[in-house]
């Protein structure tokens, strides 16, 4: 029966307690009587699982990062649905075919160990210094959403894919190795095992309480502009969802004003509704951290067109 709804989600919003997901799920169950079943995994893994299950879908709602959400849509794993609050979300951020909408906004960043480095490296080039040997690690592009976004960031910072790959190849000397997860790197940076790693602002900000040595920064490329890549958590309704109505209700609920108003306070994320302007300390803090950092929204459609070739080339160039 329809008293349950199942959500497959990329990890990030269910960390710690209280966390935003659990708070909202509880509220949702209280309001509608529908129980929420939650499964989390890496941002690519959830999509892959959905893909494998397409003959017998289990999930109603999918949440993941770009470009995996776009991939899921392209694979036909989603069905169009326009949630109730969708008109308050900027059109540029929504899928043209109505397959998904952003749910929580987030942006890439880098972190460093303030115990080991008095001040953050200024430029990407700085990271090539010998002192960083085996002290740098970033999550692997194509595996983690953050890593994928970083690849795009490097391309843009260096002006072209060729220059970007050349840089990453050079960086490989200092890179400790591939990492499927971004979240794990924070702890390593905090410990001093690593000095620099990549990340996203929502996660890192949440982790700083536990990892006091960690600070965020945005290195600049040869063109000298500091920017972050927008990597919102997208939400969409699964094609063939066993409980489509409950799924729709859950999406509506998570995009509701009330829920969105909690995003920054509980999860250090940015609400996507323009009619929600949080007043909490976290939100202020996030703004302060992001001051002077431009936000770049890649054309994900374009990205996924050449994504496979780019990854193949990445593997060739870096040998990993």
């Amino acid at each position, binding site marked *: 029966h329809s008293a349950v709804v199942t959500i497959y989600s990329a990890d990030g919003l269910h960390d710690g307690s209280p966390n935003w997901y659990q708070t909202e799920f509880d509220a949702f169950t209280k309001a509608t009587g529908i129980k929420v079943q939650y499964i989390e995994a890496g941002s690519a*893994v959830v999509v*892959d699982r959905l893909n494998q299950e397409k003959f017998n879908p289990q999930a109603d709602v999918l949440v993941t990062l770009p470009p995996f959400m776009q991939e899921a849509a392209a694979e036909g794993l989603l069905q169009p649905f326009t949630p109730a609050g969708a008109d308050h979300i900027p059109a540029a951020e929504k899928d043209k075919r109505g397959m998904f909408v952003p749910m929580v906004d987030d942006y890439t960043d880098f972190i460093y160990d303030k115990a080991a480095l008095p001040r953050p490296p200024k430029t990407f080039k700085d990271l090539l210094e010998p002192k960083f040997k085996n*002290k740098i690690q970033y999550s692997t592009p194509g*595996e983690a959403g953050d890593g994928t976004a970083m690849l795009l960031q490097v391309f843009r910072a260096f002006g072209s894919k060729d220059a970007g790959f050349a840089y990453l190849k050079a960086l*490989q000397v200092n890179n400790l190795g591939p990492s*499927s997860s971004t979240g794990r790197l924070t702890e390593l940076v905090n410990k001093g*095992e690593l000095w620099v790693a990549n990340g996203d602002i929502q996660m890192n900000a949440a982790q700083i309480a536990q990892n006091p040595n960690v600070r965020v920064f945005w290195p600049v490329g040869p063109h000298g502009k500091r920017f972050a890549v927008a990597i919102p958590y997208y939400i969409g309704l699964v094609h063939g969802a066993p409980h489509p109505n409950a799924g729709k209700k859950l999406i509506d609920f998570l995009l509701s004003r009330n829920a969105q108003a909690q995003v920054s306070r509980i999860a250090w994320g940015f609400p996507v509704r323009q009619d929600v302007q949080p007043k909490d300390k976290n939100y202020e803090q996030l703004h302060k951290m992001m001051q002077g950092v431009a936000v770049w929204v890649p054309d994900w459609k374009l990205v996924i067109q050449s994504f496979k070739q780019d*990854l193949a080339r990445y*593997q060739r160039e870096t040998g990993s």
Partner: protein
Amino acid sequence: MTSIAAPAIRRTSFNTGWQWVLPPLFFLSVLFFYPLALIVRESLLGHGRSLSLSHYDAVFTSGLFQDALLHTIVIALAASAGCLVLGFVLALVLSFVAFPGARLLARLIDTFIALPTFLVALSFTFIYGSAGILNISLMHLLHVRLPPVDFLYSAWGVILAEVTVYTPFVLRPLLASFSLIEPAQIEIANSLGAGPWRIIRQVILPAAIPALLAGGSLCLLLTTNEFGIVLFISAKGVITLPLLVYDQAVQEFDYTTACVIAAANIGLSLTLYSLYRMIITRFGGFRAGLV
């Protein structure tokens, strides 16, 4: 591991045994070989619906795959050897140098099987990491600026972690087989003037061969397929086949390539396993009539 030859004399074939194998075989076929067949089929067919080895060709010629293959073999062999040696030493002491609590210790070691393997890698970063206990202590003691112990993010780190995790697989069959050695044999050997080393070499070791065989082949299979440790140590030089399978399958929607690598991985496991069995049979087991 079930290394018994058919008894020299065939037991009377009062009841033919064949039909009894069928139920477990059927069970395993449905739950395991059917999915396995799908993987192999996918690796051969890919998206196109005609049989071709082109996917294999593409995978096998890529440098990434070749490196991973090499890493997998080297790590598996080294780790298995380490497990055999360590397991044998520990089992010897646990069985034959009785001390209170030996049984509990053996169980404690068993518990390592129950830990998700990545945790050992995790704790190793605390101990042997460049900012780990060992390095920081040494840096303070020796007044050096660079971490002196630096093996964690290499094959050695993975090997050590795997030895820790998989030694129980050698230890358990060894303990079991040691407990079956007739005490009178050791007593007699001792009374004939053999010291501990000779008894170990000539009485205990031969009796332990089936157990070593069993444990060693297990270790070889498990280390070939180890995933969690490699995932967590995640250094440049230690990418192995299972990690590649995971990467390909999960991360890049390249299911066919994943299946090819998985098939290659299975092939590798079975090859190593068979080789190991052959070597042991050739150079040791046959003497005891055990293989």
